[in-house]
């Protein structure tokens, strides 16, 4: 089977997960985009991602409203979908019920058959056979503090998974509203890594856990450096999460959901912070960029909408970058607009509108 009968090598493909299905947007120049619906239609797709380490398999969440939640995969760019032989289902003895699948991450480059999934209730799932069979990580499921974990507004969701490419035994997960949790022994045990991140909604503003971490990314060449957008601030760490440093600085708000970075210039990060209404502050939809790892932030507005009726919000997986240089930046709103920049955020264009509310955007350049 040819994986690229519709998409030549070098095509940038965006997988856009929405409230009512999965869409693919493709471009050869990151200027003209084609929107293609997939056969995963009418269901809540919280996240979708390509795994190109062997073939070009597209994974997506099918968070059904009636008949259950499933992980699905496609080997033909979404025309047909398969179900894993042993999918994401909690063991009956765990007394857990799958609510939603939140994120899918291909594993390390040197582990081509390994993938990870995060769910609500918070759990880490692992496959070692390209997604055909899945098992839950017992170390996290049985964490001694689990009975004290409380959900965020979106549920008790494990929404971020970072498998350290330099250390096979180390990985981080982000859970709302538990915080950053790290394993240094391949997932057998997990420790909290939340020091100096705030939980303003708790009497103890700096608890060991209970923070509402929204999204987290790792520096591509300094593995101990991570950045997070939290319910209460934006932070960075230089020691794998043992301590975090507040980098809100001149941002107009400490609240937002997504964060992304430029892999070629990793001190360049993007966030979208929001006001009380959980939409743009003021009348101009704005993406914020730092070129110096959070010391200073600048507003990016060229080509983004403005006006008295502009009220756009972006969810935690609604912002991503591609791996080209200059990097492309992509933003999907919870009202169905998709914006793209091909020059690291200097200029933006609307590349899709009238989509269902967008939950996630991931970018892949086909090899």
């Amino acid at each position, binding site marked *: 089977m040819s994986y690229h009968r519709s998409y030549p090598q070098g095509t940038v493909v965006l997988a856009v997960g929405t409230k009512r299905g999965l869409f693919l947007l493709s471009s050869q120049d990151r200027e003209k985009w084609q929107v293609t619906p997939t056969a995963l239609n009418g269901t809540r797709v919280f996240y979708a991602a390509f795994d190109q380490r062997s073939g070009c398999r597209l994974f997506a969440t099918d968070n059904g*409203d*009636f*008949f*259950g939640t499933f992980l699905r995969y496609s080997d033909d760019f979404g025309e047909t979908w398969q*179900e894993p032989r042993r999918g994401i*289902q*909690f*063991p*009956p003895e*765990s*007394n*857990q*019920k*799958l609510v939603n699948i939140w994120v899918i991450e291909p594993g390390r480059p040197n582990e081509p058959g390994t993938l990870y999934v995060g769910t609500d209730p918070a759990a880490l799932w692992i496959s070692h056979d390209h997604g055909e069979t899945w098992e839950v990580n017992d170390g996290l499921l049985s964490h001694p503090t689990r009975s004290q974990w409380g959900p965020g507004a979106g549920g008790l969701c494990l929404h971020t998974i970072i498998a350290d490419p330099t250390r096979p035994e180390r990985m981080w997960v982000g859970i709302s509203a538990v915080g950053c949790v790290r394993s240094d022994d391949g997932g057998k045990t997990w420790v909290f890594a939340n020091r100096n991140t705030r939980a303003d909604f708790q009497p103890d503003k700096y608890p060991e856990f209970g923070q509402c971490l929204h999204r987290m990314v790792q520096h591509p060449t300094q593995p101990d450096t991570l950045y997070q957008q939290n319910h209460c601030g934006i932070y960075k760490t230089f020691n794998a999460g043992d301590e975090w440093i507040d980098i809100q600085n001149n941002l107009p708000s400490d609240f937002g959901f997504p964060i992304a970075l430029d892999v070629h210039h990793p001190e360049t990060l993007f966030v979208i912070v929001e006001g009380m209404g959980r939409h743009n502050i003021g009348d101009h939809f704005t993406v914020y960029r730092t070129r110096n790892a959070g010391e200073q932030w600048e507003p990016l507005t060229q080509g983004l909408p403005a006006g008295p009726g502009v009220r756009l919000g972006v969810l935690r997986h609604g912002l991503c970058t591609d791996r080209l240089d200059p990097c492309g930046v992509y933003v999907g709103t919870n009202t169905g607009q998709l914006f793209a920049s091909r020059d690291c955020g200097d200029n933006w264009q609307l590349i899709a509108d009238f989509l269902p509310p967008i939950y996630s955007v991931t970018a892949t350049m086909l090899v």
Partner: protein
Amino acid sequence: MPMITVSLPNALRSRAGNRSSVTVSGSTVREVIDALEHDFPGLRFNLCYENGELRPYVNIFLNSDNIRYLRGLDTPILPGARIHILQSVAGG
């Protein structure tokens, strides 16, 4: 055990070879679901959570009675009865 005809909603027919109804044996609704799972692997998870609890937006009718107002999954089934599986009115 009696043979029971089970009507399936559109969303689940692909798991049963695109059939709108199937015939399985069972003396209770729970046994019918077990039989459906045996014949069409994966169907149970469409209807029930991992702990066996019926999903909140799945309605199962025994003839014209919703089993939630009978004995739930332990509702006994008499020969000649018909089971209807339907998604409830919800969503938006």
